[in-house]
């Protein structure tokens, strides 16, 4: 895949759509920042210099009819900090599109860096989150607990 120029502005936000199944009670999974097989090791994001988090969400959900619970993000510098370069990759349907490059990494390295990006994004909180997307889940699950030691025999 031919990529555009490497992104160099360290403070630029890279917006990532969060699939509703990759968030549990407000906690984003490491998988949300890890490319899937279909992605060919390039994680899709949108550049904050070319769009807003809200516009990015609207284009993805309304324009492209795909599912997103909201937007989390890391900066170009934060991605670089875990050893990942980012490139401009405008698409006809989305001129703000860019990618974080996971190519030439082993599966373990990919998972490692993806979970680190997710942890960084989690710490910063959502960039855009529609209010109705986060229902409060009542605490209802109580179970009798064995008096087992911390390290039991399973």
């Amino acid at each position: 895949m031919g990529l555009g120029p490497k992104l160099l502005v360290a403070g630029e936000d890279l917006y990532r759509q969060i699939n509703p199944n990759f968030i549990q009670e407000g906690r984003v999974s490491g998988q949300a920042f890890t490319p899937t097989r279909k992605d060919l090791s390039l994680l899709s994001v949108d550049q904050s210099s070319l769009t807003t988090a809200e516009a990015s969400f609207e284009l993805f959900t309304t324009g492209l009819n795909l599912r997103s619970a909201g937007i989390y993000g890391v900066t170009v510098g934060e991605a670089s900090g875990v050893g990942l370069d980012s490139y401009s990759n405008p698409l006809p349907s989305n001129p703000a599109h860019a990618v974080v490059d996971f190519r030439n990494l082993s599966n373990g390295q990919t998972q490692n860096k993806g979970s680190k990006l997710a942890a960084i994004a989690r710490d910063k909180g959502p960039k855009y989150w529609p209010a109705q997307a986060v229902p409060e889940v009542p605490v209802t699950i109580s179970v009798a607990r064995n008096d087992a030691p911390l390290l039991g025999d399973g």
Partner: protein
Amino acid sequence: MADQSDEFVRPKLEGKRFAGGKMPVEFFTDLLAYTHLVSELAKIIYCGKHGKDRVPKGFGGRYNLVMTGLLDGSAVPVFKRDRDTEAALLKVEQPDEYDEARELVSSVIASTALPQGFPKALLLHFNRFGKSLREGEAIELISPGKTSGPKLDREVRLKLLTLKGETPRYDVCILSGKIRAADVLDHTFTIKLDDESSVYGNFDQPFNLGIRRALLSHENIDVKLIGIGKYTVSGEIEGPIKLQHMTIYEENLSTDLPPFESRLDELQRLEAGWLDGDEGQAVSPGAISWSREVLRSLVTKNNMPSPFIYPTTEGGLQAEWSIGAWEVAAQFDVEAQRILLRASETTSDKYMEDTCSGDVPILVNGVIEFLTQFLNPPGSNEH
């Protein structure tokens, strides 16, 4: 034999807790750290004096400290050097390197500075020595023939650790106690620990209702919290901690947050194509029931923290824990009856991976073993 023993030091414990000659057993750890410090320093002194790289055989046998009891009326253990051993019977000059080491340690405590001949690296022994001291308490090191000596208290210990060049560190913390205050708008809480001290912290959305419930019924509810906390140079936890996992104990019931049972029910309803329409296989009922069996054993029976659970694009499940600075994931592969374990430290390049396979008890033990290394890292404190 008592008459062949020489008094070495009297570490006098000062404070209300020691009234009536009582010495809490936790102070054995502090006193042991002191004896190790003196022992290591004595070896360094010997090598320096004699231009050697190591001490001669039997050198350690000269030390051979024994505690002969507490003096009447106050908590003053008396440490003597037991001469009733072959090594100790060897003729040595008095005072020897151990006596010099004792005086040098006393000098460090008295001056809260590094005297010549005291290696900075040995200050690490003050991580343990004096750790059990509370506000208003001190250990006075009285040398033979003297009636008083330098006092180690919390302030002196902190100065010595600061001298070592340590800075506060962030690490996993496990806290047990009761939620005594919370601000649900600011997402902050205060937990009163079992030792009556309090620590404040921050919580995210997954713990909102759990914190509220624990606060409202705090008289009947105990909690165990796992999070990342800031530790002072003297190893004490201070706020704010960031909450990562939580268990609520109410009579003989417990609630784990995040709740894994209801999450599995939810994921069982996922349909194929859940990820952008063209990716994301449905999670099979077999994968759900197998994962449930593993997680029940792991969390409910073995008290491991309850994980967050997500589907994988291949139709499996991934359990995730944030434990201190570590991001830990367990990928459940029902077809292979295997769990792939991975952990990344967010503050470094450290990455660990392991696989366990077999029947459920074997898998559970494998996951416990993997998780435990992050729940009990070297140097961490459980309060």
